[in-house]
């Protein structure tokens, strides 16, 4: 019989007037993977952060191993063998990875008041090997690691306290396909030792695949808890949103469809050490997916196309005019746009209002005589955009930081799409976005495609690329491995074969 490791009774938590968790009752079994599903803002992260001591509960009780458990901070939670990998990266960039792993817990490695780095590295290496988490450079600066590698680093940090309850908050979002495989293997291994994982993820297919039990949260309440085998994907979506999502949100046609006209011509694009010899054409009304394993260079390709990287070689030009696109300015002038994977750092002004964020890429086109920018016109544009894209907020003065991930992305995307674009480069546009907004973004992209926009869709999710693209450019080892067509080549096996 499965034994209970954690029991939550009538737990509630509010932030001011917002009730984030309402009368939560939950029981986690030893050796199982328990999934928490829910839209953005449904209270999943709050619940997880209470369990691992980051937030304090308002009322209710938690029992760990049968004893009452009320951690005041993550260290106390750690002493009871509970740890968590948080959604937002919690890593100090200019310390070495190994120091990051033991940050705050370096006492054990002190010898005569000096840290024994070799011992630390050995301890970290042990975790890495024990759980088969793949290769990771432990010295150097952490900021040079990719987002995926940093996530693995955080996982090792969480594991280094020897937890028997591990909470993973949106960990796979940041991982590419191959790293995900490592993660899934790790999860099996970990629970095989009788330890428990509480998993939060937006990727419902993934959740159905790896969880034993799933609880669905909606507006802070648990609306269903069932064995995974008893859930279907449709039912899960339905429970989360409280209404049916009409049909599948991907395309259902099986053919590549786009205009004859070539918009963008890329020839032998390269960046020393990061990208080699990539050539392709983007057509009018085409969605060109870009896929590859982590470090294959798919994100580099986006940044290079936009002209952000130095020492770029090769040629990117507009086919119709022959205009070369060397710098971001040229791309924007030619009617292009680029949304980076890291929308908080590269896209949005988090502390500014929705309105301010919307206008920044647009004010350049709105000036009258003497560069005059009419405040009325600017406000109207922000207002209309916010309404047209159904951004959920109290108005255009709402601070962007306070929006959910999905609405943040709507702000980020809408301000570009209202321009008269010819093409757009999207790097993981649905990262950290719940399925409601995800479906909405796909709908928007479909419309844009119909209107003749060329779309380069860089994606970590193979299903997304397959579901949306006309053609997929597969990258391997910083090079183009091939371009596959929707008409003939779109099977997972075929694409993965090209990737490896």
């Amino acid at each position, binding site marked *: 019989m499965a034994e209970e490791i954690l029991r939550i009774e009538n737990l509630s938590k509010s*932030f*001011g007037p*917002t009730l*984030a968790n309402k009368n939560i009752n939950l029981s986690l079994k030893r050796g199982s993977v328990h999934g928490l599903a829910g839209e*953005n*803002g449904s*209270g*999943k*992260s*709050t619940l997880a*952060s209470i369990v691992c001591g*980051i*937030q304090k509960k308002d009322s209710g009780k938690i029992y760990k191993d049968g004893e009452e458990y009320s951690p005041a901070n993550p260290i106390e939670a750690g002493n009871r063998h509970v740890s968590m990998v948080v959604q937002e990266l919690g890593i100090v960039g200019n310390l070495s990875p190994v120091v990051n792993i033991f940050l705050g817990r370096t006492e054990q490695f002190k010898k005569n008041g000096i840290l024994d780095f070799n011992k630390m590295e050995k301890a970290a290496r042990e975790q890495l090997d024990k759980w088969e988490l793949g290769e990771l450079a432990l010295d150097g600066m952490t900021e040079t690691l990719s987002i995926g590698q940093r996530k693995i680093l955080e996982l090792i940090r969480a594991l280094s306290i020897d937890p028997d309850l591990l909470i993973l908050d949106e960990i796979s979002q940041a991982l590419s396909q191959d790293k995900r495989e490592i993660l899934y293997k790790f999860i099996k291994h970990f629970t095989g030792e009788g330890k428990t994982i509480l998993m939060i993820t937006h990727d419902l297919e993934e959740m159905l695949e790896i969880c034993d039990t799933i609880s669905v949260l909606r507006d802070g309440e648990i609306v269903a808890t069932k064995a995974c085998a008893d859930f279907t994907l449709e039912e899960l979506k339905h429970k989360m949103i409280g209404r049916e999502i009409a049909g599948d949100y991907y395309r259902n046609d099986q053919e590549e469809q786009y205009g004859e006209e070539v918009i963008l011509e890329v020839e032998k694009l390269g960046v020393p050490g990061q990208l080699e010899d990539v050539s392709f054409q983007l057509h009018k009304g085409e969605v060109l997916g870009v896929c590859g394993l982590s470090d294959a260079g798919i994100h580099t390709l986006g940044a290079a196309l*936009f002209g*952000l990287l130095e020492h770029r070689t090769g040629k990117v030009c507009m086919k119709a005019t022959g205009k070369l696109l060397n710098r*971001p*300015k040229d*791309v*924007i*002038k030619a009617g292009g*746009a*680029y949304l*980076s994977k890291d929308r908080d*750092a*590269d*896209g*949005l*002004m*988090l*502390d*500014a*209002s929705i309105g*301010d*964020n919307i*206008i*920044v*890429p647009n*004010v*350049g086109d*709105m*000036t009258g005589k003497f*560069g*005059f*920018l*009419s*405040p009325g016109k600017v406000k109207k544009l922000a207002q209309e955009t916010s309404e047209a894209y159904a951004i959920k907020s*109290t*108005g255009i*003065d*709402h*601070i962007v*930081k*306070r929006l*959910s991930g999905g609405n943040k992305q709507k702000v980020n995307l809408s301000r570009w799409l209202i321009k008269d674009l010819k093409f757009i480069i999207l790097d993981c546009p649905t990262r950290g976005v719940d399925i409601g907004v995800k479906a909405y973004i796909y709908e928007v992209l479909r419309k844009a495609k119909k209107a003749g926009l060329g779309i380069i869709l860089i994606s970590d999710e193979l299903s997304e690329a397959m579901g949306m693209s006309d053609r997929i450019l597969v990258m391997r080892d910083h090079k183009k491995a091939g371009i596959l067509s929707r008409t003939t080549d779109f099977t997972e096996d075929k694409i993965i074969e090209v990737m490896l």
Partner: protein
Amino acid sequence: MMKMKIKIDALLPFAVLFLMLIIFGVATKGQVFNGQNLLNLFSQSVATIIAGLGMIFVASMGGTDITHGSLLAVSAAFAAIVGQSFGAVWMFPVAILIGACSGLLLGTLNAKFKVPSFMASLSMLIAFRAFVNWILNSRVVMVPEEITFIDENSFKLVALIVMILIIGYLFDFTPFGTYVRAIGENENAVKHAGINVDKIKIIAFIISGIMAAIAGVFTIVRIGGASNNLGSGFEMKVMMAMFIGGIPVQGGMGSKLYKLIVGAPTIILLENGLVLCGASGGITQGIRGVVLLATVYFTLLMYSRFGVKKAARKIGVTEEAN
């Protein structure tokens, strides 16, 4: 709640000025409101406001330009020397040229060579002071007679209004102004919007330099001549005017021109009132420091309570989860 934030945020500078007026009105038994004293207040505020009109572009990018004290002296001294030799008409062009060059240098150091603006401008502040000492060599340079008309209050008022209108236009009604504030919020986001951030930065520093130089000419004409210590400590006065007016220390969208225009008389009134109360110079300095600290703290506090801005993060107020 959002509405409240806007109101309180907007009212703070006026509240501080009003409070100052009441305190000194009572303490000096109304002497502060004496007509001659009010004219003095205005006359003293002019240079601070003019220099602030330039510095605000740099401040709203989250940068710092403390070259002002020495730059004012260099450009004023040069302008006076050239004015003596070639005629007063050359004073402004010479000063503006020097200011623009200084801004170009500082902007290039900051934007292209990535030297933090505080350190770059501190170095220039020190170097320019040495330069002033060298060219003046402890002598006093007098300004030509024909230019003294610019020190008349009526002229100053008109000149000030014209400059406020021009800068206000640039700051609030052009894409350039939007970009400058956006850089203060998130430089990377502006870069990703395809805007040449380096160019915007350099232009902002050039405007800052030019306005400091113009302030220099007004100052030297008011005093009648240039000596070694002309303008020393001026950069601090300008910064105090901005921050006491409630311009966020870290820049960004909360940077507003009216805050500077209210802040400048506030800081001058504070000095003037203390002097009228018979306070010694040392005490005046001390009180100025305390008042500045208090205002900056309250500005930060207000953002954390009503706007959860970057400021809140800086003073350690945490965000709600999710």
